[in-house]
Structure formats: C-alpha cells, structure tokens
C-alpha cells in the first residue's frame, strides 16, 4: 500500500495511543480506532468489525504480550494512507505466530475436546481485510490489522472547503 510514490496528501497520517496493560483498557483502543475509521468514512458495520478486532488484539497484548504487567504499556498505531487504515498493536512480549490462529470447532468445544478460549486471533483474521503477526526481537512484537475503504461502496464525505 506504500509501494508507489505518494504525494504529500497521500502520506500516512498517524495517530498513536498508549494504554496501560490492564484489561478493560481495550475499550479505549476500540473508541479511538472507531473514531479514526469514522474520519475516513468507513460504514458503521465495518467500524464494528474493526472495533472487535482491535479489542481482541489489545487483550492479547495485555494478557499474553505484557502478561498483565501494569508497568508495561500497549502501543496502538493507527495509520491512514490512501484508502487503507492500518492498526498496529505493539507489546513487549515475544509475539504471536500466525500458526496460533485456530479455527474454532464448536463441536469439539462442546464436548470438552478443545479449549473454550483461543478464538481471538481467528476473530481478528475474520473481521479485517489483512491480519498478520510480526515477531520483532528489538522493538516489541505486534499484530498488524488493516481495512480498506471500498470507494465504490462506501460513501465517504466529500472533502469540505479547506477554508
């Protein structure tokens, strides 16, 4: 998405959020992400999908990445470039691996043959256009989610008078 030369107007515009590693704060990330997606003109149902994906990524960062250590923060980087909203959820842990994405098998869960949890990464992957997990030994690991505006279908606001 950053492959071709970008004009000034198209350069990524970034919003950063830094959260304490406490369960419940994922709701702050949901609100922030929803608001940025709203500025871009995403429809309400795409925003709902994004909110759940961001919440699950933040919960994983809080629980698994930072192990609920209140002295560690979770960084959420929201970047807008052209029609893409990219959300990186960075923690201080060793990171998740894509192979941890398990397609939940409800029958196995109902019969006690599969952990009842372990649905977060699957949900993330199902709800956004792109999902990957990057294991960064230096800077902290992150989940990277992205959604694309479909200009044909989604009615973004016309640019207003720059005044």
């Amino acid at each position, binding site marked *: 998405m950053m492959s071709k030369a970008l004009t000034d107007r198209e350069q990524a*515009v970034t919003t950063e959020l830094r959260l304490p590693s406490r369960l419940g704060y994922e709701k702050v990330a949901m609100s922030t992400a929803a608001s940025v997606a709203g*500025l*871009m*003109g995403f429809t309400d149902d795409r925003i709902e999908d994004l909110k759940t994906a961001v919440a699950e990524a933040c919960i994983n960062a809080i629980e698994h990445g930072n192990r609920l250590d209140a002295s560690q923060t979770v960084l959420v980087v929201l970047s*807008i470039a052209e029609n893409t909203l990219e959300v990186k959820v960075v923690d201080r842990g060793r990171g998740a691996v894509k192979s941890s994405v398990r397609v939940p098998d409800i029958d196995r869960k109902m019969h006690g043959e599969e952990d009842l949890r372990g649905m977060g990464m699957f949900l993330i992957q199902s709800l956004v256009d792109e999902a990957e997990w990057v294991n960064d030994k230096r800077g902290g690991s992150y989940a990277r989610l992205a959604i694309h505006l479909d200009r044909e279908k989604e009615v*973004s*606001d*016309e*640019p*207003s*008078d*720059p*005044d």
Partner: protein
Amino acid sequence: MNPQTQTRAKVEHNGPLAILRFEGDVTSASKDAVLGTYQKLPPETKEILLDFSKVQYLNSSGIALVIQLLMEANKSGQKVQTFGLTPHFQKVFTLLGLTKYTSLHPTESAAKAAFG
C-alpha cells in the same frame, strides 16, 4: 481524505418561513453550509427555523458561524427559533448567551409555534 466532515444544509421554504436543516458537524469548515445557506434565502423570509437534530458535533468555531447568522438575521428583522440540540449543546448555547437571540425548543412544532 479530509478529516473535517462536510456540513450539509437542506432548506425548506413556506412563504415567510424558512427551515434550515443541518447535517454533519458544525465547525470552522461549515461557513458555506451555515452562512452561505442563510444568505441564499429569498428576501421574503421573515421567520427562520434552525434544525440541529442531525448534528452530533458543534465546536466554538461552528457556533461563531451560528452567531453570525443570528447577527445578520437580527439586522434584517428576521426571527430565529432553534430546535434539535442535544441537552449538552443546549447548555453550551446557553453558556455562550445565544439564547438571548434565539430560543431553544425541544421539537419542531414547539419551535414553529414560538413565532406566534
């Protein structure tokens, strides 16, 4: 992408009455929607109804445009009634003194009735 939402204004005329229905945000980017729309009203307009029921966000720069509208209407001897503001923005309009020049009504019919 422009992060400031464009304000839309729909106008309804009925003899001396004009209804301005705003939609979107009312901010510094709303000059055309607020003042432009007002200035295009036909000269016979004597009563103006401002409908904010589809506005979720107003800031002080947007409210400054509403004050300018009130000022121009006042000069032209037009009466202005307002409805559809959330309780929060009713409080904000009251704090800023706009209620001295336009009354805030809970419904469109109450606002219309206030022209007497």
